């Protein structure tokens, strides 16, 4: 009987007294959860079954200021034998826990895939990500965490800084609605903009498909059945003459997620036609590894999970010898008394060395059910637009004939000189400095 179980119910602390989350590991009134530290272990309470009510209203209890993740207070619990003594751990929400507990609507992009995709897409704080095919919302949450660098309208930007944002498009109206609800529930309003849209036809502009604002995205993730049909909208100068959904000042990174090779091939073909560069296709192979102790030996009798089998050739031989001896005695008509045989057996069976948890050989193996294929990931890059004027301006600014071999040697010299001058200045400044001394000074004084 497996004693390792899992339960992942998204739990939401409610303000209402009497709101209870029920799991197979017991009932937990939310009043026992609110105010507890994250990560706390919390005992199940005995609840009057009459008062249990699963209210559909979910409320988040705390504004999770900097935490960008989903707000499911994922509680993982474990039951002992009796239901009355269960407990759970109160965890704070992360995209990872959301991915594992979200209501499935479509195929889910799991952590190994999205972590790699977001890394390759250069989705960083301040980036804008287009996600088409919001699906179950797993990627949505992960990408919000990646691009988050402040809530809009939170404070006047001290410097011109773009705030990270995710623009999510979903063809399926109901799913789009669900994602929108989740985003609101999780306090991600303003960070994620969900649009119900057929992107093949209508493209990626926010608001009206024709005249709407451009999301100005630098990273694009397409989890669509036919990504190649959407690619025509993701160009610098759309044929329709409208605004490009891409950020004109940055390189665009794209990733498409297709389970079938044919889809990926078609996508790549279209990408080549549309001048995408560095096209590459990969698949992510991930598996979890189980670690356990393998206990083999004749002395393991009575220990569950262990294999009673000779550990070594010697042990096998000893066993055979003993068996033989016993058989002989038996043939001799049980003349030998029971005592000696019992003694022998006792001597041959040694006590297992050490406590149980450290007995046996440590082994690792792959989990039993492997996800051997998730999808083919196609990555590509579209450099920013570059006009003849830009080029001319650049040529003026950095005259191209200014570098010749003669220039290089003095340049090296002057760098050295600069360093020396810099050091001297530093010394001087350090001498003058009253308030604080700095790291560079450390260099000079120690040097």
């Amino acid at each position, binding site marked *: 009987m497996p*004693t*390792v179980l*899992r339960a992942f119910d998204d739990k939401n602390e409610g303000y209402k007294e009497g709101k209870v989350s029920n799991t197979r590991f017991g009932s937990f009134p939310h009043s026992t959860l609110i105010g507890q530290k994250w*990560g*706390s*272990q919390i*005992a199940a309470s005995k609840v009057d079954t009459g008062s249990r009510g699963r209210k559909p209203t979910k409320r988040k209890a705390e504004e999770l200021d*900097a935490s*960008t993740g989903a707000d499911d207070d*994922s509680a*993982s619990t474990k039951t002992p034998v009796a239901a009355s003594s269960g*407990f759970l*751990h109160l965890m704070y929400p992360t995209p990872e826990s959301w991915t*594992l507990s979200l209501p499935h609507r479509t195929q889910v992009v799991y952590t190994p895939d999205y*972590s*790699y995709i*977001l*890394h390759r897409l250069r989705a*960083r*704080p301040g980036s804008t990500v287009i996600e088409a095919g919001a699906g179950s919302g797993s990627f949505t949450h*992960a990408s919000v965490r990646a691009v*988050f660098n*402040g809530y809009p309208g939170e404070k006047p930007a001290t410097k011109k800084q773009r705030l990270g944002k995710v623009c999510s498009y979903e063809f399926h109206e109901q799913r789009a609605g669900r994602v929108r609800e989740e985003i609101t529930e999780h306090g991600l309003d303003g960070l994620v903009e969900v649009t119900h849209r057929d992107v093949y036809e209508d493209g990626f502009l926010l608001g009206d498909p024709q005249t709407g604002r451009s999301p100005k995205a630098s990273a694009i993730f397409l989890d669509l059945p036919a990504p190649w049909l959407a690619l025509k909208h993701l160009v610098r100068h759309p044929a329709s003459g409208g605004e490009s959904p891409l950020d004109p*000042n*940055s*390189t665009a990174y794209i990733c498409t997620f297709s389970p079938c090779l044919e889809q990926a*091939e078609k996508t790549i*073909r279209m990408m080549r036609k549309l*001048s995408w560069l560095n*096209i590459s*296709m*990969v*698949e*992510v*192979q991930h598996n979890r*590894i*189980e670690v*356990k102790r393998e206990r083999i030996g004749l002395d393991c009798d009575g*220990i569950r999970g262990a294999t009673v089998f000779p550990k070594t050739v010697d042990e096998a031989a000893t066993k055979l010898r003993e068996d033989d001896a016993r058989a002989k005695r038996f043939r001799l008509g049980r003349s030998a008394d029971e005592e000696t045989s019992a003694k022998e057996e006792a001597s041959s069976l040694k006590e297992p060395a050490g406590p149980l948890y450290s007995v046996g050989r*440590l082994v690792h193996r792959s989990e039993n059910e492997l996800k051997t294929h998730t999808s083919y990931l196609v990555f590509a890059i579209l450099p920013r637009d*570059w006009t003849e004027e830009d080029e001319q301006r*650049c*040529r003026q600014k*950095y*005259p*191209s004939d*200014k570098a*010749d071999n003669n220039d*290089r040697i003095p340049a090296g010299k002057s760098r050295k000189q*600069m360093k020396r*001058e810099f050091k001297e200045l*530093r010394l001087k*400044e350090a*001498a*003058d400095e009253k*308030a604080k001394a700095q790291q560079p*000074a*450390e*260099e000079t*004084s120690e040097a």
Partner: protein
Amino acid sequence: MHSFIPPNQFVAIKLPSDQTRIVKLVPDSLVQLGKYGSFPANQIIGRPFYFTFEIQDTAEKDGYKLRVVSATELHAETLIEEAEADGEGEDQPEGSEIPMRTNRQIVDDASTQTLTLQEIEELKKEAGGAGKEIIAKILESHTALDQKTAFSLAKYTLRKRQKYLKRFTVVPLDVSTLANFMLAEKDATRTMELRDEHIGLLGCFGNVHYGGDSHNEESTTDGLPTTKPNGRYYVVDETGGLVVAAMAERMGILYPRDEEEDEDDGEEEEATDSNEQNPTGEDSNAEAQGATSTSKRKRPQAMSASGNTITVVHASSQPNLSLLKYFGYDINTPDENHPLHTHLKTVTWLQMLDPAVDPILSNRPAEIPPAELAALKGSKRSAYHFKRNRWERIKKVVEEARAGSFDGLVVATLLEPASVLKNLVPLLSGSASVAVYSPTVESLVVLMDKYSTTRRTAFINNKRDLEAQSTSGQTDIDLSSLYEEFELDPTLLLPPTLHRSRVRAWQVLPGRTHPLMTGRGGAEGYLFHGVRVIPTTANVQAAGTFRKKRKLEQQTSTPTPTTDQDVEMAS
């Protein structure tokens, strides 16, 4: 991050041979690309990244000798092939008899190439730059060319092109580029053979993200932040700074703040002065104004940020973060405008464990009254300030690090992982994530075993027994014997999981799609993940009546987690 090539920063240049060079683009200098030739750096500075340039032999009249190779040209071969494939598909009904090319007739012999080496050299001199002519000639003169299958032909042209085309692509030097560069062309063991997929997973499992805006570098004196979580992470990094860089990238503190992003291209000068020039310029300004000490511009104190920070715990007296230099941050001569200057903190293990004996912390510089100080010579005074500030800074950082309540722990270390977790996991706040990378599985298997269910159960039971032995009046229970038996407290981390991830690259060409034939071997790379939990004390007692029964079951069970979020029976 820039979309165009910045001056005075490192960029990666990809060559046709698939090699990468990392170059610092100093304006007015010449970039040498070995046999591919050279070009003035000015000719690529300011241009967009990911452009492919071809070095031409004959320069334009202003000395410009690079040509941007368009995407269509780069894809030309495949596009033609694809078009042909489409055409064939229309003309020929399925299964019609086109003689299939095989490699049966091919003689593998150098004699099939009729051009001699000398002739090729001459050709190179004549045709010079473009290289395409040479390739065409070589292809022409290959007698057995028509016998080649499409596959081997593509291979052949590709090989020749890599040899003769003078093309290069300029790529921004970010964490991914650097990781691949270290992996493929430098000593991969220096970065513990960390690959892209590991970096991504490490960041996600560690739940590393931007942790709030805290640009109050100058004001924080006692500033422990009030809001939680605020993005403070422990990092143990023996990859030369690659992990720190990757985490900093996720937190938005890796790249120098550049104002030019939103504005026009015109104002790069201020933002792009080299590290050394920048402070120099400021200081001379300050002096020119005759302001020596009073009106001095306040500079951000090193390691002063209160949130969104990385605290590196290192084993030597100085951390090895040399790779950060590629991102404009040299740990020895830090650029004060770089975000890492305030957001990267470093602590030695000695300072963590036993600050009393640390050579710097234990030597508190004596305070000198201001009057006396004014009488001192300039150099002595600065030395005093330096020592005093350093002591205060380190003291503050160490106190913060030792106080704990951090939001995550990311480890890629040569140390035994269990010893790292033993010391740092108790300092994490509840629900903080722990992610450990190891190139090989063994150390992580041991770590997993340290958190195994049976061990945890034994730990809880032993602890309870010890507590039961002690008299009720005693508040401090001697648990030292417990920690002798158990190296680390297995109840603090749930659910321990171990992962392996590998990315497999494919070649996608019309009719020739397959996984790449060769790839990098070496370390597979494994990740350990767990979440810090706070075990309750009261509950365990309450459930005590079931202990015996459960204990029996526990002993028989083996940890067989099925998902990320498994929680095993713990009490």
